[in-house]
C-alpha cells in the first residue's frame, strides 16, 4: 500500500497539505471517487427512487439498491432485506429502541450495556427503559478497557432482553469480543446489538460469524458521505418489528384508518431516501475492495504501533486504554498533565494537527475513568508516520507553551 499515492485520491488532503488530520474516529475524509459518485447521482440519475415508472427513476432505484447489495456483501449478511439504510449509526440504534424495544420490552425487563458506550448506544436505551419500565444495567471494564467474562455473566440474567455493545470503543480503541459476548447473551435468552461505528470501517465484520442480531454503523466514518448509515437486523426479527417512521414508501395499502406495510427493507425506510449518499457509500465500499481490507488493516496496525511508540515517549502524557499499540485500533485517547484537552487541541491546531478534545460523547466512561475530558488522536490508513511524529512533537511542546516549565523534546 503506497500511502503517497492513496493520499492523492483524497481531495481534502490535497487541499490541506499542511494539515495532519487525526480525527478519523469522528469522520474520515472522502476519496475523489466517492464524491464523484454522489455528484454523478444528482447529475445523471436523479429521480425519486422506488416510485417512478420511468427509466430515470428506475436508474435511481438501481443505484440505491446496488449500494444496499454492496453494504450487504461488506458485512456478509444473507439478504438485502436485512440491510436498512438510516442516516447513521445513531439512527440505527434509535430504530431498534423505538421499534423493537417499545414493542417487546416489558416492565422489569433489562437492557445491558457497557460503561464504555458512546452516548448513541446509551441514550436510546435510557429512553427505552424509561418508556417501558425496564432497567438499564451496566457492565464495567478494567483500566485497559477489558470487559471480564465473569463481570458480563454476573450482569446477565433471565430478565435481560437485549445486550448492546460497541465492537470497538470510540475512546479506548479496545476491541470487545463481540462474538463471545453475543453467544453468552443468546445463552441467557437475550438479543445482541452491536455498535459497529468504529469497527466496520477498520476490521472485517461478518454478521453471520459474529452471530449478532443487530449491527449499526455510519457511512461517513468509512470514506462515505454524511447522512447515510446502516442497520443490519436478522430477517426474522425485522419482520416482527413494527415500523419506526411512518409515511410514504413504507406501505402496501392505506385506507383512512389503517395501513399494511411494505416488505423489508422498505418497511423501515419511510419517506424519500438519501439515494445520493447511498450511492457514495456504495462507492466507498468499492474503495475498500480496491485497496483490499487486508492491506488496510495491516497498514492501520502498523500506524497504531507507531503512534503508541511516539505517544508513550511524550513526557507527562497519559494514554488511556490498552498497554499495547495494535490493541488501540488507531484510537489514542490521552491527557497531558496540567493542560486542559481543549487547550491541547487548540495548540495542536496552530501546528496544523487536528485532533478531538472533550468527553467524546462518552460521559459515563469519562466519569468511570476519573477524567472529565481528554484529547483523542485517531488514525486512518491514509495517515503517515510523519503526521504521527508531528503529533508527538507538537504534544511535547504544549506544556512549555502553556508556561509549565521545560519539557524535553522528542
Amino acid at each position: 500500500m503506497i500511502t503517497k499515492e492513496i493520499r492523492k485520491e483524497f481531495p481534502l488532503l490535497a487541499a490541506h497539505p499542511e494539515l495532519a488530520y487525526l480525527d478519523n474516529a469522528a469522520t474520515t475524509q472522502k476519496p475523489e471517487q466517492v464524491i464523484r459518485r454522489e455528484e454523478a447521482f444528482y447529475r445523471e440519475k436523479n429521480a425519486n427512487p422506488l416510485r417512478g415508472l420511468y427509466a430515470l427513476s428506475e436508474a435511481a432505484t438501481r443505484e440505491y439498491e446496488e449500494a444496499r447489495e454492496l453494504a450487504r456483501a461488506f458485512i456478509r449478511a444473507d439478504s438485502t432485506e436485512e440491510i436498512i439504510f438510516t442516516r447513521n449509526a445513531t439512527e440505527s440504534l434509535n430504530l431498534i429502541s423505538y421499534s423493537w424495544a417499545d414493542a417487546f420490552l416489558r416492565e422489569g425487563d433489562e437492557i445491558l450495556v457497557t460503561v464504555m458506550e458512546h452516548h448513541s448506544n446509551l441514550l436510546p436505551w435510557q429512553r427505552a427503559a424509561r418508556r417501558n419500565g425496564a432497567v438499564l444495567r451496566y457492565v464495567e471494564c478494567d483500566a485497559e478497557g477489558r470487559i471480564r467474562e465473569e463481570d458480563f455473566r454476573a450482569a446477565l440474567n433471565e430478565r435481560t432482553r437485549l445486550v448492546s455493545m460497541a465492537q470497538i470503543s470510540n475512546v479506548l480503541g479496545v476491541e470487545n469480543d463481540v462474538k463471545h459476548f453475543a453467544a453468552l447473551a443468546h445463552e441467557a435468552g437475550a438479543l445482541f446489538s452491536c455498535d459497529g461505528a468504529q469497527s466496520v470501517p477498520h476490521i472485517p465484520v461478518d454478521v453471520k460469524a459474529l452471530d449478532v442480531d443487530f449491527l449499526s454503523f455510519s457511512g461517513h466514518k468509512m470514506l462515505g458521505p454524511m447522512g447515510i448509515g446502516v442497520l443490519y437486523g436478522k430477517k426474522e426479527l425485522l419482520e416482527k418489528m413494527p415500523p419506526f417512521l411512518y409515511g410514504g414508501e413504507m406501505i402496501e395499502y392505506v385506507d383512512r384508518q389503517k395501513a399494511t406495510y411494505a416488505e423489508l427493507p422498505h418497511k423501515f425506510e419511510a419517506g424519500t431516501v438519501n439515494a445520493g449518499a447511498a450511492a457514495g457509500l456504495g462507492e466507498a465500499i468499492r474503495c475498500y475492495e480496491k485497496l483490499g481490507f487486508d492491506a488496510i488493516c495491516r497498514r492501520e496496525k502498523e500506524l497504531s504501533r507507531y503512534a503508541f511508540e511516539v505517544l508513550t515517549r511524550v513526557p507527562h502524557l497519559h494514554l488511556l486504554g490498552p498497554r499495547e499499540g495494535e490493541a488501540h485500533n488507531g484510537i489514542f485517547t490521552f491527557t497531558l498533565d496540567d493542560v486542559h484537552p481543549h487547550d491541547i487541541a487548540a495548540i495542536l491546531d496552530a501546528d496544523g494537527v487536528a485532533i478531538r478534545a472533550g468527553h467524546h460523547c462518552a460521559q459515563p466512561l469519562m466519569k468511570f475513568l476519573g477524567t472529565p475530558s481528554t484529547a483523542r488522536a485517531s488514525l486512518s490508513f491514509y495517515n503517515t508516520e510523519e503526521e504521527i511524529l508531528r503529533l508527538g512533537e507538537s504534544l511535547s511542546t504544549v506544556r512549555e507553551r502553556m508556561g509549565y516549565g521545560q519539557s524535553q523534546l522528542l
Partner: protein
Amino acid sequence: MDNRSFYNSILTEHNLRPSNKRELPGANFSLEGVNPNCGDDIVLRLRVEDGVIVDGAYTGSGCAISQASADIMLDLVIGKTKEEALKLSDLFFRMIKEKVTEEELEELEEAAALSDIAHMPARVKCAVLGWRTMGEIFAGDTPSQA
C-alpha cells in the same frame, strides 16, 4: 489559523498563577458557572458593599481560557461599582462578538489579550464564562449565602 499568539503570556500567566483563585469568606454573592460540554466549572464569589465590588474571587477548574479569563475579569472589576463592572462586561462581549474601538480595548486592559478568541468560536463560551456568571449574579441581585 494561527493561535500561537492566542496562548500569550498574559493568558498563561493568569492560568498558572491566578491572583484571584481562592475562597472568599466574606462574600455576599456567589454563583456557579458551568460549560457542560467542556467541563469548565467555576464558582464566582463577590463581596459587594454599597454597590461597589470590594472583593472577588473564584474557585473551580477548566481550560486555561476559562480560568485565566475569570481571573483577569476579577482583577478588572474589583474596586469598581456594579454599573462599571457591567459596562466592562458589555465591552468584553462586544470585543468577542463584534468589534470595539481602540480606546474601548484599552479600557479592558489585560482582558484585551482575549480578543483573538473571536476567531475560535468553539472557545468563546470558555472566555465568557466568568463574565456571564457575574452578569447572572447581578441579574439576580439578591445577596446569597456564599
